[in-house]
């Protein structure tokens, strides 16, 4: 077999179903899952679910974003219409109803309830429209298959997360109806072979079941709940009465790790030490990967520190519609993660790298926290609605994050000067970088802030004109922390809001902003210099047949578990032991899906089950049994580990 490098797309778990609110009070039921491919949604149902999600980010509703869902060109492939409004046009004709104008009027009037009613109805009628289309094509085997599958893609907005959880019996009956409908349209085969006949009676029976349910439940208004943090909307069938609304996330969300995965460099490892020999750091590493330290919805979604800061760096793929203004960004003080910390401003920021964190204080894009410990506490409690962490947890997290190193760069000496390997162009660029310009902040140079001898940062905040969002001409709200330029090649896009895509864009922007009047050659040289100092010898994790995605996860999780044996069980520290097990046991199970051979998953499950047994023993206060079970766990890890890839 040929030499194949295995794709480095690490799956993280996704908690697909929890509960954020009931009619009165808050109840939380969490079900966990690995990330599985999102089932296809039709553009109409995708726009509907995302828009409903945006409504729930109130009280300040982003109506511009909602309008875009319906009027902008769709991004999905394979459709003949250009916008969602256009997709609704033929549906109006078939059912002789107005769908587009009520939606447009609701947006214009910023009437959330009217908008939700109109779009819920439109989604139901769109489902029925494609079923009607299918019905007209039953004379030819397979001709209606695409229509039925399209109808199901529209219906999924109701069925997938909502009917399934609040009306399971109906969900089952509807599921059987969809199976019968798919089967009833037959198949055209290929070249005359493999064709199957249509079954019109079976089709009509299924159609009646599906249409009756849709008309009863989704065409006479939508389900709205008043809560302490504003109105909440969800596609709940009207006939079910008071229900618990499931936690749901919008289509198009991406919590997968960045691909390629950044390579983590921990200082103690670089110096030859093992993480398991530094329990505080090992526990901090576990917490960095734990959704348990956050509150809902982040916790139920499986969001962790490392979801955004993959392997201490960034995650260019991270995206939650309505929360991220672009991939690799998030509004962490908006309505979604913690409504009580909603600053009412849609200020989604580019995710910053944490490489070299011990050198890059203060923290936050505007440098609002001098203390990494205080910054971390703010993230846990305020941004992500977690409970107050223990002193030990904060100590551990900080100890771990302070080990994040920059990736070495053979073109750069530690004092910030170029090595002999640098190109002539980079050497010329270095001169420009250190040249002071009268037009640049009253005689400064690039190096004034990005100080070469100090990790290309200065620990200060400056208003360089990268934002024009002033509340007063002399206000101080657009000062941002000077970012390091080390390893900057891999952290695109750039600026606090990720508004510039490339380093070339950044150099061109600064040339214009500060009237540097650089020639084309000088611009090229300056870009070359920044690219050279921002490089890394090994920026990304390289996977192969030995270093597989699963083995990386296995090594991490088994290292995390060592603190059970070295610290928590001997010290009878139930709280931190259970937090650890609640984090890693589900992670073992989720990461099993990354095995090269999934049939080996039982070994991983057995390890996870053993951890759960330890938890039970700890909960019962039987520390002797917990120690015995931990010994058994270690034996399993030793036996199974070498077999797993």
């Amino acid at each position, binding site marked *: 077999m040929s030499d194949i490098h295995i*794709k*480095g*797309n690490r799956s993280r778990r996704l908690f697909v179903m929890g509960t954020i609110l009931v009619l009165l009070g808050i109840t939380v039921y969490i079900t966990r899952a690995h990330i599985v491919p*999102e*089932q296809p949604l039709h553009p109409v149902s995708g726009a509907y679910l995302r828009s409903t999600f945006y409504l729930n980010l109130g009280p300040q509703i982003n109506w511009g974003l909602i309008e875009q869902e319906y009027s902008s060109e769709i991004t999905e*492939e394979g459709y003949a219409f250009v916008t969602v409004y256009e997709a609704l046009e033929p549906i109006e004709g078939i059912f002789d109803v107005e769908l587009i104008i009520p939606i447009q009027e609701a947006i214009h009037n910023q009437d959330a309830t009217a908008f939700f009613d109109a779009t819920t109805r439109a989604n139901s009628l769109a489902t029925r429209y494609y079923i009607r289309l299918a019905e007209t094509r039953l004379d030819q085997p397979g001709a209606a298959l*695409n229509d039925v599958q399209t109808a199901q893609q529209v219906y999924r907005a109701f069925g997938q997360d909502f009917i399934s959880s609040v009306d399971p019996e109906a969900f089952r009956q509807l599921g*059987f109806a969809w199976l019968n409908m*798919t089967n009833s349209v037959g198949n055209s085969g290929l070249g005359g072979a493999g064709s199957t006949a249509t079954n019109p009676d079976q089709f009509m029976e299924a159609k009646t079941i599906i249409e009756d349910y849709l008309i009863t439940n989704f065409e006479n208004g939508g389900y709205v709940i008043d809560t302490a943090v504003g109105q909440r909307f969800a596609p709940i069938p009207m006939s079910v009465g008071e229900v618990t609304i499931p936690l749901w996330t919008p289509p198009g969300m991406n919590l997968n790790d960045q691909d390629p995965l950044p390579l983590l460099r921990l200082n103690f490892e670089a110096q030859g030490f093992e993480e398991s020999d530094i329990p505080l750091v090992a526990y901090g590493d576990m917490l960095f990967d734990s959704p348990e330290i956050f509150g809902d919805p982040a916790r139920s979604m499986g969001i962790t520190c490392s979801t955004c800061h993959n392997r201490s760096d960034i995650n260019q793929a991270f995206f939650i519609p309505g929360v991220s203004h672009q991939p690799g960004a998030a509004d962490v003080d908006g309505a979604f993660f913690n409504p009580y910390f909603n600053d009412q401003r849609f200020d989604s920021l580019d995710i910053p790298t944490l490489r070299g964190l011990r050198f890059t204080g203060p923290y936050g894009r505007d440098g609002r926290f001098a203390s990494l410990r205080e910054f971390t506490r703010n993230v846990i409690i305020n941004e992500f609605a977690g409970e107050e962490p223990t002193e030990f947890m904060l100590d551990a997290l900080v100890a771990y994050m302070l080990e994040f190193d920059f990736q070495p760069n053979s073109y750069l000496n530690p004092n910030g000067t170029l090595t002999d390997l640098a190109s002539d162009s980079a050497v010329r660029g270095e001169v420009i970088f250190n040249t002071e310009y009268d037009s640049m902040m009253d005689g400064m140079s690039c190096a004034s802030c990005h100080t070469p001898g100090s990790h290309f940062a200065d620990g200060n905040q400056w208003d360089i004109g990268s934002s024009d969002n002033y509340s007063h001409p002399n206000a101080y709200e657009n000062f941002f922390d000077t970012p390091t330029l080390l390893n900057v090649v891999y952290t695109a896009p750039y600026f606090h809001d990720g508004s510039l895509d490339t380093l070339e864009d950044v150099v061109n922007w600064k040339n214009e902003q500060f009237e540097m009047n650089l020639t084309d050659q000088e611009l090229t040289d300056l870009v070359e210099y920044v690219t050279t100092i921002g490089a890394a010898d090994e920026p990304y994790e390289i996977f192969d047949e030995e270093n597989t995605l699963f083995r990386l996860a296995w090594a991490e999780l088994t290292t995390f578990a060592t603190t059970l044996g070295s610290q928590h069980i001997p010290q009878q520290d139930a709280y931190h032991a259970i937090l650890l097990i609640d984090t890693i046991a589900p992670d073992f199970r989720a990461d099993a899906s990354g095995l*090269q051979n999934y049939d080996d998953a039982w070994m991983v499950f057995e390890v996870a089950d053993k951890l759960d047994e330890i938890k039970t023993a700890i909960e019962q206060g039987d520390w002797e049994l917990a120690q015995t079970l931990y010994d058994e766990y270690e034996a399993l890890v030793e036996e199974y580990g070498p077999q797993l890839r």
Partner: protein
Amino acid sequence: MILSLFLGLLMGVGLPGVLAQSSNCEDIEVGVDRPLNLVYIPQENPEKLIGDITEISSYLEGELGIPVEGFVALDHAAAVEALGNCSADVSFMGGLPYVMAHELVGAEVILGEVYRGNEIYYGRIFVLADSDIETIEDLEGRSIAFADPISESGYLYPLDIFVQAGLLDAEDDPQEFFSSVYFAGGYQQAVEAVINGFVDAAGANQYVTLSLQPQQLEEIRWIAESDPIPSHNVIVRQGLDEELVEDFTEAMLQLNEPEFQYLLQYVFSPDGYVRVSDDAYDGVREIAVRYGFLEEDVLDEANEDDATEDTDD
């Protein structure tokens, strides 16, 4: 939009008898007269959205130095028709549609997918974990869901498990053994029909597990496995310029390298590609003949081709 125009051309196809090689294919100079056209088939992976196909097109344009465009076909028949009439040059499909495309329009396989480190995979029979069904014999008089009739791992190979066990003859209507047979439209849909209690068993690709939630995984088990199936592949139309085929092949193989692997998510997410030849699909061809998808003389022709290649070697 270009896409809809293209689909318009494809929508009328799929009818038996219309699949044929166009006579003017030789006149088309790809890259000059029109772009290199890639055609994707949603049914190849109905559980997943087709990604942004412009990503892979842009990559290929950079590597090949000619315009490249991607299109989505309605189904296998439309894609094969497009290869036959030279409106498309490259497609991505499974072994069964490939051997049929090879016979119908002379398409040639150039690359096979590597998935989880393997160039082969299996079809399996899934049942509920707590079901009383232990063997395939227990499925007599029970219901089963398959994915799609034009699917090797979602129909023919799982069905062949029953034939090899002597429970069915290849020419039998499967309903003579099962109480009812459904085509659910995809692997995931077939297995979910089991989980939801609609049917007693499902025949599906082994990797359907990757599309299921963990709690669903705990609800099913598999009781039988098919013969190995060669992986899904990349095929080119008959008559496509050989130099272009080679350049395209090299560009796709370059996706195996770490810095390009992220692009694999836009072509159905394999681990990578390896070169394969048509004879790797002889097993699929035999099954296709056994179940009436191809005429028997196809096997004779394939054997002759293999013998010629051996002689050439």
